[in-house]
């Protein structure tokens, strides 16, 4: 480091090089992070600062739903209506599936794919159908990738979707409380609060939670326009999603899409708290069991046999 005799301060070569190097480094860093700008463009400030669903007032919700509907029109070219049906009093949903009758046609999965506005390329749905031998109830001997005409003699078919557990492991592990169990039993996700850490996906014993690895792509004419804020609206990239028992339908008293699609009539849905309901009759009178009972998740989804 050289020093002048005069009082004028001098910047050493080393310092000048350091500053130059630092500037180049900062510029390179900005350049490297450039793709973030495309991401940032897609998010409004309002969306960035949006509060948790449970903290929203009704005015907030109206504003947010309008914004989401506009976004959907812009991005997908589809006109949709986003509602927020509330859980009814004295309702707790239950769902049962008749293993003696299911033929494994996957029409339920297809209906789910369409109703819930899933990304078309991924062919995703919240229901996975397993084919296994009649002799074993063990999933390790089952396959979900069968591709032959169904039903096959000697085999049983078992669709698996979110069981809306009464003791859900996914709700416990979420670090930001983005998922919770509603009064009527449905476990929901606030898609605008989820940070995408996928801890819930690791925690679920039923593979019922899915992640949006990309921005969903759906042709405008295939978008289901009747949407729920917590259920089947088109989810953004980077957040979790799951079966909600079609709450945009069921909270209005209608049947879920998978049940209506089943050609074999293997599905039964209703209010567990209503003693006259079909689902109560099934649980009280048929040979019923639940998956992975030893996990202590207490599912609201039951499997039963006719015989």
């Amino acid at each position, binding site marked *: 480091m050289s020093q002048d005799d005069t009082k004028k301060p001098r910047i050493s070569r080393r310092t000048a090089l*350091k500053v130059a*190097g630092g500037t180049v*480094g900062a510029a*390179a*860093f900005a*350049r*490297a*992070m*450039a*793709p*973030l700008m*495309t*991401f*940032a463009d897609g998010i409004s400030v309002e969306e*960035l600062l949006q509060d*948790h669903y449970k903290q929203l007032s009704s005015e907030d919700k109206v504003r947010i739903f309008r914004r989401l509907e506009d976004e959907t029109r812009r991005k997908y070219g589809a006109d949709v209506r986003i509602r927020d049906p509330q859980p009814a009093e004295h309702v707790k949903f239950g769902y049962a599936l008749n293993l003696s009758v299911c033929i494994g046609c996957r029409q339920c999965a297809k209906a789910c794919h369409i109703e819930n506005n899933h990304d078309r390329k991924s062919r*995703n749905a919240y229901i*996975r159908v*397993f084919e296994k031998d009649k002799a074993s109830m*063990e*999933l*390790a001997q*089952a396959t*979900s*990738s069968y591709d032959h005409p169904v039903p096959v003699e000697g085999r049983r078919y078992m669709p698996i979707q979110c069981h809306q557990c009464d003791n859900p*492991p996914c709700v*416990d*592990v*979420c*670090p*930001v*409380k*983005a998922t919770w169990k509603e009064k009527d039993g449905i476990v929901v996700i606030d898609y605008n*609060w*989820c*940070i*995408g*850490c*996928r*801890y819930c*996906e*690791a*925690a*679920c*014993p*039923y*593979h019922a939670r*899915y*992640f*949006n*690895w*990309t*921005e969903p792509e759906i042709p405008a004419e295939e978008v289901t326009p009747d949407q729920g804020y917590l259920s089947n609206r088109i989810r*953004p*990239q*980077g*957040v979790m999603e799951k079966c909600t028992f079609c709450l945009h339908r069921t909270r209005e008293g209608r049947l879920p899409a998978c049940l209506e699609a089943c050609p074999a009539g293997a599905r039964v849905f209703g209010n567990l708290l209503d003693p006259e309901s079909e689902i109560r009759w099934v649980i009280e009178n048929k040979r019923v069991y639940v998956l*992975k009972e030893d*996990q*202590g998740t207490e599912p609201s989804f039951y499997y039963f046999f006719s015989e």
Partner: protein
Amino acid sequence: MESHVAPVETTPHWISYPRFVFRLLVLATDGSLLFYAWMTLLSAVALVGANAWAQQVAEGMALTHMSDHVSWGLYIANFTFVVGVAAGGVMMVIPAYVYHDRKMHDVVIFGEMLSVAAILMAQLFVLVDLGRPDRFWHLVPGIGQFNWPLSLLSWDVLVLNGYLVLNLHICGYLLYMRYLGREPNPKWYVPFVFLSIVWAISIHTVTAFLYSGLGGRPLWNSALLAPRFLASAFVAGPAFLIVALHALGRFTSFRVEERPLKILLSILRITTLLNLFMLASELFTEFYSGGHHNASARYLFFGYHGHSALVPWIWTAIALNVGAAIAFFHPRARTSARLVIVACLATFVGVWIEKGMGLIVPGFVPSPLHEIVEYQPSLVEWKVTAGIWAFGLLVYTAALKIAVPVITGASGKIRGT
């Protein structure tokens, strides 16, 4: 060493502290050509990683090879490993402070700086794994919705940040005192040092509980997971420190004494054996009775239904760890620094594989519904991971660059006079 000088004593802290930070910056960027070459290389790799991550955020995590079946991969694997390194970094604190070994005091700061660098890396690994990093503010207690105490991730946020602050305080205080030419006041750092010993154990226990609490994942749902994590952390940390100390001796004027190296080696002798013993215990429990609960273990060690991508990895890791353990006990380990360094590197890599490919990935194969989808990281994931490692090494190198003058007593250099 300079004694108290009047002008320094009367300068208030809010003036001298920023000067101290500036001095640190100058020290951290002053070095030989080799130093600049090393730092430039690391910066370049870090930039490649940053760019890859920006792409991933923009285009979605489909750029990684994770899937709904294997939903955590290279990022969380590395996160788990570096939290272990951060915990293991304070290994030297125990002999120094608990056993009052004065000679160890000097090198304790290297361990704490390792912890700082490792915790920063851990936080970056979590950040790059988030689907919506723009929403990280949701995690901040008071502003977001912090699910404490139910969610283990919330515990992790608390303990990791607390540990970072703790170590920054200890290192910062000791360095600042040296800068001022004052003797450090034990009241301001000794309690924190003891706290950091306990806290180090807690950070890795919480990270282990993240996994072992999930009933749906039989490979992880084991009481032995937290002890295994700690054992392997106390292998990886000291192994890295031994290599770092030798590197310091090779590339700087710092001369590392025999005693800290001896102590670290004796620690390694115990912890590598403990690590291997726990592995054996796990193997026995998984395989003795059979059944479907060991499907993931079978996939990892022997292959499952024709899928065996991880089998070469885990056996390599075991070979490396066993080889290193043998080397540590060999009589030549007392005299040959080269043997020890090679063994340390081997076991560092072995533990990295064991915690990453050997724990995180097989936990997802087969899936809870027994579907088998395998995983190998994509190029984007490798780039981001390399970038974060480069950043960590950058931080650690800069930290050593600052700490060495302190240790060698060239505090005149620190104060810029």
